[in-house]
């Protein structure tokens, strides 16, 4: 992988992680968390871990996010921090 | 071909769990017999393993037929066979004892409950028997995950919350352990315990190995609730349903102590732990703190369940201290205490279960006069209490004796002082309760009473396990010598303490 692309994804991963824990709305957290998982999966695919990346794409970015949204739907979007 | 006992040990409860879960949709009455059968088979396998492991030294079982560094192997020595036997006995007895309580409390979901319970026990067996570092993590997670679910079943108000807190801390613990395994893997390239132990000596000076050791230990300590890391334990054990806390309280922490011993002895090696690192003194101080803090906090409680939870925190300090004193006596004391403490805690929580079956709560006010109504239960309580205090004919005395001798030999006088002090505090604790239960008149609100308003004894199906455990408290005390000769001596023969 080109190092420019690598660096870009690395920055996005950290940005998404920080945003997911600091944004003040749980639904946004869910979406940012999905984005974080997807960026992570790209990173792993770049390192040649295709199976792990595939799993993370289907689990982390897919099903986990859906669970998360379902849980937010059943509870609340409100958060103080 | 090897014996199939190691595979049978894991598979019997695992398959029984699957069947239980299937039966919960089909024919619920079959769930309990299936669970009972599964645990009986693994009890037999455990007995077989103990008998084989004594003379043979180590029993190996290669999963999938692949030889060790490539595949996963099970390695069972005399010590792990002993721990496995304790797990099998306690899980089976608790299953039998809690049947009525589970039927009453869980109503329409007891089939699923039994499935989760069996998976929990499977995980404990696996953690004890496995010879692979990563397999240990997976099984640890099974145990924890089922543990969270079981604890959350309890007391509607606080159960889920304390379970979620336990989950957060448990995940941190397990992840720390996984990090430690990762550091070991990056430095050695292997995951098999024996293989790692073989590859480690040239790397002893490396800081990565040091960090691997620290993180493995931190993870395990979090899981076993060593003093500053114990915050999850009291709430989780207090608000769990009685049928669950009875099996989690005696087994979970003790198995973690065993895992710690296993990592110290078979993976990192004693030479590394006691000679390369200068941590022994620090950890013994930590253990001393744990013993004292647990005892003092237990003194402050007005609820029996909370009190017992803090007693467990204190007992963990005994075992960790004993294992880290770095002499044979200390190790003997620690292993004996694993056995004894599992039995004592089990007896205490059986008593709790019986009381909770009849009483509304177990704060001190509720206990007034319970001796009159429930003489057998309270007799068991007295015996377990004496054992925790360490009064001679009971088993608690012998492990404490070994630990005190070991502390004197190693020159860890603060540890000895803490042991004596905590025994005194325990004496105060238990005699205070016995006084309340024996002398004070029953209060007006004593829960489930019989026709004439009297408190009734717990059902026989719950008393028999209590009786058996109480007898074993005495029997293990009498046969402590043969445990030392039959189990601990062979183990120390394999891994001599420098």
């Amino acid at each position, binding site marked *: 992988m080109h190092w420019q692309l690598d660096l870009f994804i690395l920055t996005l991963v950290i940005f998404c992680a920080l945003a997911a*824990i600091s944004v003040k709305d749980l639904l946004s957290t869910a979406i940012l968390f999905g984005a974080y998982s997807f960026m992570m999966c790209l990173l792993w695919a770049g*390192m040649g*871990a295709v199976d*792990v990346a595939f*799993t993370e794409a289907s689990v982390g970015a897919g099903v*986990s996010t859906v669970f998360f949204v*379902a849980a937010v739907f059943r509870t609340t979007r409100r958060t103080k*921090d | 071909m090897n014996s199939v006992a190691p595979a049978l040990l894991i598979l019997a409860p695992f398959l029984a769990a699957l069947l239980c879960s299937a039966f919960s949709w089909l024919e619920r009455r079959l769930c309990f017999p299936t669970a009972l059968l599964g645990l009986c088979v693994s009890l037999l396998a455990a007995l077989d393993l103990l008998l084989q492991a004594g003379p043979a030294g180590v029993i190996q079982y290669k999963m999938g037929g692949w030889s060790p560094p490539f595949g996963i192997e099970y390695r069972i020595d005399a010590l792990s066979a002993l721990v496995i036997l304790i797990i099998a006995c306690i899980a089976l007895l608790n299953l039998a004892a809690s049947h009525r309580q589970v039927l009453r409390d869980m109503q329409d979901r007891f089939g699923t409950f039994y499935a989760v319970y069996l998976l929990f026990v499977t995980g404990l067996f696996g953690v004890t028997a496995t010879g692979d570092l990563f397999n240990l993590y997976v099984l640890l*997670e099974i145990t924890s995950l089922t543990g969270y679910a079981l604890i959350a079943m309890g007391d509607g108000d606080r159960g*889920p919350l304390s379970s979620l807190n336990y989950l957060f801390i448990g995940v941190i613990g397990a992840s720390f352990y996984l990090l430690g395994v990762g550091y070991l893997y990056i430095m050695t390239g292997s995951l098999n315990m024996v293989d790692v132990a073989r590859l480690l000596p040239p790397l002893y000076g490396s800081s990565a190995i040091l960090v691997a050791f620290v993180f493995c230990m931190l993870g395990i300590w979090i899981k076993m609730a060593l003093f500053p890391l114990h915050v999850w334990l009291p709430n989780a054990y207090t608000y769990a349903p009685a049928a669950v806390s009875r099996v989690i309280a005696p087994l979970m922490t003790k198995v973690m102590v065993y895992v710690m011993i296993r990592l110290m002895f078979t993976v990192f090696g004693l030479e590394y732990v006691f000679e390369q690192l200068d941590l022994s003194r620090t950890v013994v101080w930590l253990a001393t703190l744990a013993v004292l803090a647990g005892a003092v906090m237990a003194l402050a409680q007005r609820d029996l369940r909370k009190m017992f939870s803090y007693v467990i925190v204190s007992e963990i300090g005994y075992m960790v201290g004993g294992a880290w004193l770095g002499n044979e006596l200390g190790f003997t004391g620690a292993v004996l205490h694993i056995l004894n403490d599992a039995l004592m805690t089990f007896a205490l929580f059986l008593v709790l279960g019986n009381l909770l079956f009849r009483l509304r709560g177990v704060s001190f006010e509720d206990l007034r006069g319970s001796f009159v109504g429930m003489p057998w239960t309270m007799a068991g309580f007295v015996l377990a209490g004496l054992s925790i205090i360490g009064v001679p004919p009971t088993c608690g005395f012998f492990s404490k004796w070994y630990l005190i001798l070991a502390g004197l030999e190693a020159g860890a006088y603060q540890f000895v002082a803490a042991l004596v002090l905590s025994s005194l505090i325990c004496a105060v604790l238990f005699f205070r309760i016995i006084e309340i239960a024996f002398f004070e008149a029953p209060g007006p609100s004593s829960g489930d009473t019989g026709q004439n308003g009297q408190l009734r004894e717990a059902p026989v199906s719950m008393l028999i396990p209590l009786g058996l455990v109480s007898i074993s408290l005495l029997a293990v005390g009498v046969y402590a010598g043969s445990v030392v000769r039959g189990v601990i001596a062979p183990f120390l023969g394999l891994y001599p303490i420098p």
Partner: protein
Amino acid sequence: MVDLLTHIVAKYNYWLYIILMMIGLYAMIVKNNLVKKLVGMNIFQTSIILFFVSIGYKKGATIPIIENAHGNGHGGKQLLIRAADYINPLPHVLMLTAIVVSVATFGVALALAVKIYQRYQTLEEDEIRMRLTRK
């Protein structure tokens, strides 16, 4: 200076995982909202997975699927396979398991969060504690 730079380039993936781990752990300890803590937990777990995947990486090697295995039929004795050509598959296997464990934990934790919300009508830890003490 060049020395330091090569050092950074050689290890930056390990550093990245440490940063992510710190973010996750910090969120788990400090955040007040239970679901936020859960997100922290997941970031913590993925950072460890990133660490393991980084262990497996090998320069000049390709993904761990043997090429041209189809044509030679099963058994593949004729095929010359060199370890240097393929990435180490073992960490990938371990991390597949770890991902599964993390999603299982996540599911159970969300179920617990829903249950807690039903009981207390809030997900904030301090508000729950307030309700408990008021009773």
